[in-house]
């Protein structure tokens, strides 16, 4: 009995002597492994590494999302297109809605959207965000979109209220009549063979009144101008 107690106490003593330092290391490792700790701060550097001696960088300031810009071209080649969208509020007799946030995005001349490419810094070309003025207007400078298999040429639009709540997700279609900008641009290098016209398009086919079709004017020398109105609830 005495011996047992001695052994027990002895083990406990050893436990303190040897386990504690290991626990300390473990604790440190566990802290660092826990992604909920914020990574940077939850690292071994807290207790084990030399503290940084660098001069602090500039004081970080609040920066807008990279979407917030009027010129969304980002070096993409194509015919210049100015997009003027006015937002009306149906519940207020379709009068201009000031302060609405308007996101637009569309594909480039080859029909590609900006998205993650493997292992590279993200590119957000041809995507932008503007806030409507007192006339409900936002303006973007971009290029005339190309097209891709299965879809008519289009521009995506997402309208939010000032606090970011979605009001409308829609798309803008292009006129296809003879002499139209769409036929003048002629799909850039692709031509129009295999093109899906609005009547066959799975988004625009039900737009029998053409409410989704914008007014597009201009030419390939001076660029084109798109004007469109979108009414939101």
């Amino acid at each position, binding site marked *: 009995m005495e011996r047992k107690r001695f052994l027990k106490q002895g083990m406990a003593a050893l436990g303190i002597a040897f386990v504690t330092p290991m626990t300390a290391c473990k604790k440190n490792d566990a802290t660092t492994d826990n*992604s909920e700790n914020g990574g940077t*701060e939850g690292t071994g550097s807290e207790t084990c590494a*030399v503290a940084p001696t660098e001069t602090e960088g*500039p004081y970080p300031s609040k920066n807008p*999302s990279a979407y917030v810009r009027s010129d969304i071209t980002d070096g993409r080649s194509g015919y210049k297109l100015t997009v003027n969208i006015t937002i009306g509020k149906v519940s207020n007799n379709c009068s201009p809605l000031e302060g609405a*946030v308007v996101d637009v995005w569309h594909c480039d001349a080859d029909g590609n959207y900006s998205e993650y490419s493997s*292992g590279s810094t993200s590119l957000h070309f041809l995507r932008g965000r503007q806030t409507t003025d007192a006339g409900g207007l936002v303006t973007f400078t971009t290029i005339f979109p190309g097209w891709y298999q299965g879809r008519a040429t289009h521009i995506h639009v997402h309208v939010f209220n000032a606090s970011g709540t979605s009001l409308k997700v829609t798309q803008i279609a292009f006129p296809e009549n003879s002499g139209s900008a769409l036929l003048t641009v002629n799909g850039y290098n692709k031509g129009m063979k295999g093109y899906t016209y609005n009547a066959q398009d799975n988004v625009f086919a039900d737009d029998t009144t053409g409410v989704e079709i914008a007014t597009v004017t201009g030419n390939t020398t001076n660029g084109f101008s798109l004007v469109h109105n979108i009414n939101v609830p």
Partner: protein
Amino acid sequence: MEETGKMYRKVITLCYRKIIDARSPGRWEKLVFEDSYAEFLIQSQLYNPEKKYTRFSDMLQYAPGAEKLHFLVSASVINYVKPLNNRMPDITNNLGKSFLHFQHYFFEIINSDIRDRLVHSIAINFCSSPLIWHDTVGDYLLLSEKKDNTLEEVQTDILQLRPFLSIHSLQTEQYD
């Protein structure tokens, strides 16, 4: 390393996964947290218009296209990463000095919830430009910036690997 008269060296890149969540201290981290969460709320409405799902993980599983939210939300951090001027944050050499430059980075949403901002956590993965891994000294990597001229004296740094910092790529390169 010498083998049949040829010299070889190990060229590595390091990647640091900087995780930011509601508990991250630091003004930069807090701004990134707030703005990425705000952008998540905005962009997720495209894939979750009826707010059927609150968790990002459920959106990924049930809402087609929701995986694009990683990319779409990344726009909210671009203007915070730019001022870093390609300097890798947080990682210092054994002198406590920042020395790594990142060549590219990518953003990911780890978790989020449209009803609970405390769930929101993101990672920015910073990957370094190529480095020569000369040797390992104790727990430290002896590194220098990759240069073409292999004969001149190079400035070296020693770095201890730590959680969220990994050797991302390794290439054994022959040189004269």
